[in-house]
């Protein structure tokens, strides 16, 4: 439980340092922000890590440092936005 709170806080703060906007602008924007795709993705990857191997401080730190970088630089290449 503490690991999840710690990981969410670290990824939110790192997203803020990487100059992503803090909150989504409206309900239809695809722009990655520090709150929306970052924090749920961190929680999901931490859950996968806890199921596959035991969760300790090192794993929590490395996942929550990697996820904001992934969201900022790689997400739009992995899932490109197709406008209707």
């Amino acid at each position, binding site marked *: 439980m503490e690991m999840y709170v710690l990981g969410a806080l670290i990824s939110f703060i790192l997203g803020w340092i990487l100059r992503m906007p803090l909150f989504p602008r409206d*309900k239809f924007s695809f722009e990655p922000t520090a709150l929306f795709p970052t924090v749920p*993705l961190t*929680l999901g990857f931490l859950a996968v890590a806890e199921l596959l191997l035991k969760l300790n401080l090192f794993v929590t730190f490395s996942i929550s440092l990697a996820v904001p970088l992934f969201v900022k630089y790689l997400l739009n290449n*992995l899932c490109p936005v197709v406008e209707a």
Partner: protein
Amino acid sequence: MILQIIVAFIVCWLNFVIIDVFLGLPERPGVRGVRQIAQSIKEYRGHINGGYMMGNIVCSPDASAGTLLASACYYAFSSPLGGLVAALAVFFGNRICSDPGYAGTTGALTTTLWIYLFSSYLGFQPEYFIAGMVLAIFTIQALHHRFSSKLLARIAKKLGVIE
């Protein structure tokens, strides 16, 4: 047990309808095919905004899918971690279907919270929530399209999402 399934049905219905309406599903079609489904529901004398919401539920995993998959993974993993894994999978499914993914992820996380509270304080099992969610999507998508689209449009008007 029947009473518990009915309570789970009410919780799931309110959860996914309120999140979907608030996050803008009845406002506009998200992808191309939604327009045709809404048009056919309108030709069946339903409401066009309810048709948009039903088409959006068909065409990308939204809060309804988040609710079902979070309860299914909670049951399969027998711990709240399943809900978080479901939120991750629903987010990537949403992005592949060219949807921003706010509704699905929020739905999965809130459902995990509800199941955790209900199972630790009231003794509910996660399979009641699976049955309740299947019943809820049955009332929206398969029971009576004219009535359900008008009901969804009325709820959206009452919450102030569409005029």
